[in-house]
């Protein structure tokens, strides 16, 4: 017998009585305003929030990351120095200082943004870059994870992630360090104020 059939037959003869599958409610009564909640939790998770900058996105980026040499953009709003569409090998993003992407939606409860291969262009952009800037339409914030996991996007993307602030570790004496193996900072730029 193959290991597969062996395992399945052992599981079927384990003698467990079938138990029912419960319904999962949305738990969305009386939640705080989504944008406020998102900003609060994002800050707690080490991310930064920015309203649409008056001076324009490119000017803001120049002051925020004055030393950045390679800025890889996956959004039409910002040019960057490298277009992600020109990259095929994920490893080629090794020297990116700042990555710029646009989230499909966000989750207020956890301060997370949703990104997949469609938003990244090349997935490694979200992790090899030193810093990540995420554009977000402020009207695309879902109240909690129950709402989020009912989005068909999860079943359609090859790869997707709920990204919450920058990479972090507390593995040495519990000291919290933002910037573990992935990005060192994550800034969410709200585009809600735009008409």
């Amino acid at each position, binding site marked *: 017998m193959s*290991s*597969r059939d062996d*395992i*399945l037959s*052992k*599981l*079927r*003869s*384990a003698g*467990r*009585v*079938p*138990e*029912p*599958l*419960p319904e*999962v409610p949305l738990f969305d009564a009386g939640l705080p305003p989504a944008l406020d909640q998102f900003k609060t*939790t994002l800050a*707690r*998770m*080490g991310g930064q929030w920015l309203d649409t900058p008056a001076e324009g996105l490119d000017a803001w980026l120049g002051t925020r990351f004055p030393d950045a040499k390679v800025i890889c953009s996956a959004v039409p709003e910002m040019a960057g120095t490298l277009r992600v569409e020109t990259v095929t090998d*994920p490893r080629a993003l*090794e020297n990116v200082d700042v990555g710029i992407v646009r989230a499909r939606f966000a989750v207020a*409860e956890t*301060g*997370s943004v949703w990104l997949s*291969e469609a938003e990244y262009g090349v*997935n*490694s952009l*979200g*992790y*090899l870059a030193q810093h990540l800037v995420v554009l977000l339409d402020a009207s695309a914030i879902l109240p909690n*994870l*129950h709402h989020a*996991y*009912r989005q068909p996007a*999860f*079943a359609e993307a*090859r*790869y*997707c*992630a*709920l*990204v*919450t602030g*920058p*990479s*972090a*570790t*507390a*593995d*040495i*004496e*519990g*000291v919290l*360090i933002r*910037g*573990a*193996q*992935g990005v060192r900072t994550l800034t969410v730029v709200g585009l809600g104020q735009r008409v």
Partner: protein
Amino acid sequence: MGKSNDIFSDKKVDHVKGSRQFIADEPHIAFHDKRLWTLRELRDKEAHGIAEWEQLRELASAIKSHTLTHLADYLEEFERNATANGVTVHWAKDAVEHNRIVHEILAARGVDTLVKSKSMLTEECNMRPYLEERGITVVETDLGERIQQLDDEPPSHIVVPAVHKLATDVAQTFADTIGTDRNNADPHYLAEGMRQDTRPYFIKAGAGMTGCNFAVAETGTVVTCTNEGNADLSGNVPPLYIASIGIEKLIPKMEHLGVFIRMLSRSALGSPITQYTSHFRAPRAGGESHFILVDNGRSDRLAMDDFWYSLKCIRCGACMNTCPVYRRSGGLSYGGVYAGPIGAIINPTFDLKKYSALPFASTLNGSCSNVCPVKINIHEQIYKWRQIVVEQGQVSFVKKESMKLAGKLLADPKRYRAWSSGAGKALASLPRAFLYNPFNAWGKQRELPEPPKQTFHQWYAANRKQENEA
């Protein structure tokens, strides 16, 4: 004790002896105790902030019960969907087969370097030495796990693998292995040193590997919950991706993730979610993905009427953080892949003789069961394992003799009353040296409570009896 391969020897684990080594070092145990209790407090704060917390625990437990009682069906559904997504699905009945499959995948593609994120399952399979003996460099890319790899120790905690170490220990290990300054124990400096050392491996590696927190049958998706970004680097940078999946990780639908993700990091670290919750469904364009479904004792456990519940575990570590025995003995003293209360009930299912001491590493206070997000009756299982250990004659001589004495005492009301009123008086008048000496295990690391002036029986006789008679 405590080196990586020791946990795979047949030698019986002596938890008391193992913990004695850890207890002997005051700064380490003081930090360990405090750090893990902090995690417990952070967990409480998060849990209390969610009105439906108890309802979520009920749901999580019920979803797991349903899935485990239909596990074969969901595994077939998962396999069908993953295959349709372009993933190659493998089945491994044990650790040996798992390691052989991983090696075959890597060898067939000429891969000589594997980057991986933390996976308790690959620890369980002792995969690293197997691959390294066959010429493959395996690089752990989670900071805590990398510290443990470079120090040749197994993880001492399932979420924070190096929690038993102080920064000064890490400074020594890193100085010896990756060349950081021996005299600089600043955690920021050490973490940065590890980041700089690890990055080139992501670029160089021919394959990346992760474990799996949840496997969604409906979509064939593998979900990982991590903080450092290393799982996403492992899964998205090299051309080949491998995920090892314990068969108990299945859940039916994507919407069920809402329940588990809301509780996992809150229970583990007291944060609302991990920095990255990542969903690997299909290989990226031009990439290749393999999922390995691993049994390694799980189907046997499902058939154990008293212990199949432990398969619900989502590896949050909350039971470890809250356990007074774990906090004061350290993970390595358990001598197995899994430590703490969950280790005390999982390890004996692998090897009862080897791990017969672990069910006794507990006060049975029940705190582990109270914090468990999937409501595993951990302390009751610990108690049941004790009965089995005793039935099978695996109890040590000292424990056996003192249990016999206690048995006689507790079975005889007269003797018990005479002993308990005497014990209280003795406790109040005994010199400290008598209580806090090396032969009294209960005097170590703790102060005994003030003895009551009366036993309950004496108090009852003096008060209630008169009332009843009145």
